[in-house]
């Protein structure tokens, strides 16, 4: 676990440095994900340890959003003045984004790709 965690941090560091150096609009960790992906492609896949550690980390990805989510208490008053247009906009726009993205993909799906190959349930 320690070696895998170190690897992840090294790639994050690499991503942060490159993002800042080239002043890219993408955050360091997202760039680090891209770099790790390229490394995996070159190396022919993750080792057992990296596989297990990332699986553990991602299983509880939602935990990691909780501290930032609680930050809503500080800024909630900003929402108060215009809560109705904000709420309508968020609900309608999020639903529209889900529908449009899914419809466009479905229309362009190659015919031979069996939907849901192997895995059962979906979110």
């Amino acid at each position, binding site marked *: 676990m320690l070696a895998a965690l170190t690897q992840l941090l090294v790639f994050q560091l690499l991503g942060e440095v490159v993002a800042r150096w080239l002043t890219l609009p993408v955050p360091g960790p997202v760039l680090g994900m891209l770099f790790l992906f390229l490394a995996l492609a070159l190396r022919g896949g993750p080792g057992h340890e990296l596989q297990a550690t990332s699986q553990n980390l991602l299983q509880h990805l939602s935990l990691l959003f909780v501290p930032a989510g609680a930050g809503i208490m500080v*800024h909630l008053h900003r929402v108060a003045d215009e809560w109705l247009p904000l709420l309508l906009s968020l609900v309608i726009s999020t639903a529209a984004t889900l529908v449009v993205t899914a419809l466009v993909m479905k229309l362009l799906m190659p015919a031979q790709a069996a939907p849901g190959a192997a895995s059962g349930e979906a979110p």
Partner: protein
Amino acid sequence: MTPPISEIWVYLSASPLLGLTITLLAYQGAFWLYRRSGMNPLANPVLIAVTILVLLLTLTATSYETYFAGAQFVHFLLGPATVALAVPLYTQFRRVRSLLLPVLAGLVAGSLTAALSAIAVARLFGASLPTQLSLAPKSVTTPIAMGIAERIGGIPSLTAVLVIITGILGAVGARYIFDAMKLRDPAIRGFAIGVASHGIGTARAFQVSEQAGAFAALAMGLNGALTALLLPLVLSWMQ
């Protein structure tokens, strides 16, 4: 002689231990409920844990800064977890490559819909211009979204709140929308969730299937980059 309880509270409220511990406790309680509900999206663990924490902090008059001094250790792991998304992405890459056209077209259509429909609805219901612009990057992961809001004339801290609410809305509502559309493919479901509701949607997708999670992670990364590049351009054309 034991010290009075208020003295212990003074110690605890100044140490990061408490913030970290209540974060983990609130999340585990929330996750237990989520499990008990059969992973029902309505029992979203982020939503429940955040609600518990906000109530707790408000009741004990604890400031968010004090809380975050402890919770930052959990928050920090978002970085390495984002990097770790490369692993499922690699595992699922064969399917991603075979779906290049639907993925890219879905990305562009979804990215534009997310930003423009948010502005349009807010304008229709009379929101101010800075509010409309703060809404535009709401489907993008927080650090990118705040940067975009700043550049286009929105309010970054308002955007941060809207991003989180959007994530929760997508994670809670997506299943019902996809089921109504009779859409079963986990690649499409995952990708659409990732475009519409970034990391919080991606977390939900991973809890359901690895394939959906990998496509959601891909969508989150691509939509962040595309929106950052495209939205300032689109808005300047519109003016």
